């Protein structure tokens, strides 16, 4: 029951589409301060790739690839980086964007990738947090399901 997958057609399609979904999610996260989207949306998109892997390849394959301690640590790191980026401008106010006008980096012209102060850092942190959190939750639901099949 545990190593149940969805057959060779779905597995082949998933093998082709999972990298594309992941790349698109990474694009949404990285361009969060320029185009519609951001950390939450891009992280949820990448988590969709992980959930597609779980559905297409079955729980047995997912158990081999999924490391609980690594994902817990990455989620904590995401939250801490978010708080740390908010702390950067604590001299003026919490959540003050001090990197934007007088920081050493991330202060290019508006509309370029390396601009907008702490917004790219926060987008990456929140994206990491949402991705690891959603994959952990869905793996927990699949692993310890409480109904009989």
């Amino acid at each position, binding site marked *: 029951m545990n190593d149940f997958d969805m057959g060779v057609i779905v597995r082949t399609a998933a093998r082709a589409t999972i990298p594309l979904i992941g790349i698109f999610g990474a694009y949404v996260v990285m361009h969060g301060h*320029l185009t519609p989207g*951001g950390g939450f949306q891009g992280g949820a998109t990448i988590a969709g790739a992980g959930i597609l892997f779980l559905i297409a390849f079955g729980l047995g394959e997912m158990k081999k690839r999924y490391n609980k301690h690594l994902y817990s640590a990455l*989620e904590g790191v995401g*939250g801490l980086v978010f708080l740390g980026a908010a702390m950067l401008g604590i001299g003026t106010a919490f959540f003050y*964007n001090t990197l934007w006008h007088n920081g050493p980096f991330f202060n290019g012209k*508006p509309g370029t990738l390396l601009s907008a102060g702490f*917004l790219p850092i926060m987008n990456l942190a929140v994206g990491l947090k949402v991705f690891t*959190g959603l994959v952990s*939750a869905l793996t927990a639901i699949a692993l310890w399901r409480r109904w009989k099949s």
Partner: protein
Amino acid sequence: MKRTLAYLSLLFILGALLYIANPNYGLKFGPGGEDWLKYRYTDNYYIEHGVEEVGGTNIVTDIVFDYRGYDTLGEATVLFTAIAGAVALLRPWRRDEE
């Protein structure tokens, strides 16, 4: 018969909503025109000063991560709590193993 009636009523609801949501003669959400600037000056402030003060050309990200940063902090906490609750509720309990 029942199914046809259901589809017809759905169609009727769609038509009513389309009529209500028409901006020309339907429901109005808030004042339009010049009154908009008088009562919703905060929106206009974000649109005019967001790029200069925060730097992102996506104004929504400016608002979510800078002007309303505490809200995003709470949202991250809610996500963490939800996942912790799901894992705590779903994992095997002692009486399941008998």
